[in-house]
């Protein structure tokens, strides 16, 4: 899941990788850096998404070297889309690209299974996302602050993890904004209580 706020984005994901009912990895990191201020959330086949992300990293680093300045988030999303679309018959990859660039600020792009590209204010993906469409649509409002976004992401993912068997583990949060150092915020390894 990724949400845009004024000046940056918040990305969040669960940490469960499953093969059938067996949890292969309960602490996986589904949020990956593509570039300094561009990150992606992976969902779908772990191998496919890892391969796609590796390609995008490679292309984007070459592009940035030629460009000699920070790349646009849209460029990264476009590269993701090209790979996912051209290889749609062989891939099962749903990606969310979130980042910040000096030209358009914080942006969130979703590249779902077919390889389309859509810019959104907030995006959700993965198996657990189906259970929280209503929650997310109801909770989101324009002009949220960074803290409100983080709370929004935490709450939504916690609810998805609660209902979806393929989601679980911990919630990882990444926060990107226009500062010298990007801040990585990792939630402590405890389970969120949903009773409140």
């Amino acid at each position, binding site marked *: 899941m990724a949400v845009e706020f004024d000046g940056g984005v918040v990305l969040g994901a669960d940490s469960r990788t499953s093969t059938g009912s067996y949890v292969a990895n309960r602490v996986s990191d589904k949020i990956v850096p593509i570039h300094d201020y561009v990150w992606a959330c992976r969902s779908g086949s772990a191998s496919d998404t890892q391969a796609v992300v590796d390609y995008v990293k490679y292309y984007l680093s070459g592009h940035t070297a030629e460009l000699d300045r920070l790349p646009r988030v849209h460029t990264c*999303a*476009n590269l993701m889309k090209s790979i996912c679309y051209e290889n749609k018959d062989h891939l099962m990859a749903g990606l969310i690209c979130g980042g910040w660039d000096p030209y358009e600020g914080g942006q969130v792009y979703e590249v779902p299974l077919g390889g389309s590209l859509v810019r959104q204010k907030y995006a959700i993906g993965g198996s657990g996302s189906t259970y929280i469409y209503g929650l997310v649509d109801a909770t989101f409002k324009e002009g949220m602050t960074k803290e409100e976004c983080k709370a929004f992401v935490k709450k939504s993912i916690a609810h998805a993890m609660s209902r979806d068997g393929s989601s679980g583990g911990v919630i990882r949060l990444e926060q990107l904004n226009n500062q010298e150092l990007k801040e990585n915020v990792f939630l402590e390894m405890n389970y969120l209580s949903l009773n409140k």
Partner: protein
Amino acid sequence: MSSTGAGYDYSCGTFSPDGRIFQVEYAAKAVENSGTAIGIRCSDGVVLAVEKPILSKMLVAGSNRRVFGIDANSGMVITGFTADGRQIVNRARDEARNYRQTYGHQIVPTVLANRLALYVHYFTTHGALRPFGAASIIAAYDQDLKTHSLYMIEPSGNCFKYFGCAAGKGAQAAKTEIEKLLYNSNSSTNNELTCREAVNELARILYTVRDSSKDKPFELEMSWLCLESDWKYTMVPKDLIDAADAAGKGSVVQNSFEETKFESESMEV
């Protein structure tokens, strides 16, 4: 100035004993024999102008353009062998299109200029190929940084970013004129010239630097990329060109006695 190649000038694949590649220098000479092209980076845009000699009365006015658009936000003028120049334009258009397709936004001026320079340079490193006998002057706009730039690529593959540049027959004289224009004020970096002013100035310069007794009559082609054109590379509107042309001619009327029949015929925008 000219020294004999004496066997070291047959191909680009050979250095001379004093470290020169003669073929590249000869290519530059080919450019020097052709109509003058100039470009100026103004405060609110870039203006390019090229003198297109009218080779025959049978030619339709406005044909054999030397002004080319590359993408919506970039374009170039060429001087030298126009056929060679068109090859470079083709490549520029390919580069811009591929960049747009791969990265999803319009090509950035620095990238366009560098890639074209690489391409032009490539032809100076092979024994089997000859260098382009054409110089290109490129105007481009960066959509993200919101800046406009002017580049010139010489047949050697050298590419620099300019405030003002010139190529072709009257290049030396034109450069002097441009320097006078740009450094009128004390501050050399703060160029106060606007595009509209530059249109007239460039036409005047083109008329000034040509030798009207020796040179053929010419057509004036001008293009710009500025605030007024919404940062799209377009031909300067016909009325502005006609006015500039008349003013330019007026400034040298005392020297020119042969009234040519082909002055600045219709410029299709």
